């Protein structure tokens, strides 16, 4: 059994904080992106609406390695976005923690926009019409009626997306690699520890990850349960 050296312990915590940072940013991006897309798909009819829905759902069903490959094609040195970032700002995204954020955000996007769409569709559109006849702007209709009524469903999705982002492995490995302290997230650190035969380290990281995910799921279940009780009260 390998003993936990002080160096190893320090790295473990860096993997946790990095995972939390990556998942936090990915969730923040999806709060804006997922909620806007959910609202758009729920309330606006346009050609290709269901195609867009399918495309956005792809990350949920595609193997993460395929997702990672697509991302490399786009943000890699020779990719359209990557080349532009490199020539305009001198930024190279590949093998940075920001690349891990992008990978985690895309992988967890369906978990936000799907429930968000369902939640917005569940809002009685007559309430939005009533708000319009009362003279408030479209933005105010969204922030004062649609969003508060859809909020709990969205929140549950955001928490699941956070957990999914914490666990992202395949795509992250491909675009961000496994640089300890820089891009080595919890799930990647576990893989590396097992590969290196560091069982103690792997055990600790596995327990840590499980605890974080269980907490997130408990909070999500509580929020969803609360919503169901609330709806029963109204009915």
């Amino acid at each position: 059994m390998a003993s936990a050296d002080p160096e190893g312990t320090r790295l473990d915590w860096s993997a946790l904080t990095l995972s939390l940072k990556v998942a936090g940013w990915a969730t923040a991006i999806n709060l804006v992106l997922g909620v806007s897309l959910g609202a758009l798909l729920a309330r606006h009819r346009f050609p290709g609406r269901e195609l867009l829905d399918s495309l956005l759902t792809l990350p949920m069903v595609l193997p993460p390695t395929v997702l990672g490959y697509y991302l490399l094609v786009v943000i890699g040195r020779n990719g359209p976005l990557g080349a532009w970032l490199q020539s305009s700002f001198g930024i190279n995204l590949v093998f940075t923690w920001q690349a891990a954020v992008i990978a985690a955000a895309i992988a967890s996007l369906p978990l936000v926009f799907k429930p968000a769409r369902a939640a917005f569709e569940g809002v009685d559109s007559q309430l939005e019409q009533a708000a319009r006849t009362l003279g408030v702007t479209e933005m105010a209709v969204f922030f004062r009626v649609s969003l508060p009524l859809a909020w709990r469903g969205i929140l549950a999705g955001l928490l699941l997306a956070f957990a999914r982002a914490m666990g992202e492995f395949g795509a992250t490995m491909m675009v961000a690699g496994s640089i300890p302290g820089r891009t080595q997230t919890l799930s990647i650190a576990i893989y590396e520890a097992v590969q290196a035969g560091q069982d103690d380290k792997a055990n600790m990281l596995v327990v840590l990850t499980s605890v974080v995910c269980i907490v997130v799921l408990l909070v999500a279940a509580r929020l969803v349960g609360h919503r169901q009780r609330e709806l029963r009260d109204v009915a």
Partner: protein
Amino acid sequence: MWLEVDIEHRLTAAGQVFDLHAALQFTQRKVVLFGPSGAGKSLTLKAIAGLLKPTRGHIRLLDRTLFSSESGVHLPPQQRRIGYVFQDYALFPHLTLRQNVAFGVTRGWRNAKRGDRLEGVEKWLQALRIDHVADALPHQLSGGQRQRTALARALVTEPQALLLDEPFAALDHHLRAHLRSTLDQVLDEAGIPLLLITHDPEDVEVFGQQVVRMADGHVVP
């Protein structure tokens, strides 16, 4: 004449075609649009409020053109200054009764706070005798209280006209007579023109200074 409507609209749903052709001129302050369900009354009301864009025609309220297919005018509901009381009242379930009433006079992206007291809001809460339940949520109220909240919410924005979609249909039968006279009294005091749609002859008796009958999407003489 305070309202002139001449609109055509075609609805297609599940292979069925419904043609609405509503040509109406309202001269009296209290008008009832009377007819069976499916006559096109609600569609007409929605078109007047701007919640539906007719295929063709025009709508004029007092001296303003709200809709005209000819000159391409289609004011959004926000700019029409028309109060609308929905059949099931469409109260915001996440807001207290007072916040509901304050909705249209609160600017910005945030709702009024629970503790906010606005002069116009308090005036209408008292006038409609719902001030004692103002901190309750809509689902905690009786049907009559909900109806008066919807009415207060519309009136506090000082609309130029009020549209009422079957305002008594969701209420118990024995409550209707009482609430009719309350509503009539309040609206007389407010003095704004109103258009009420109903399939209940008793509504016609109370509110029908002018009665227009509709059936199958057309005005019946």
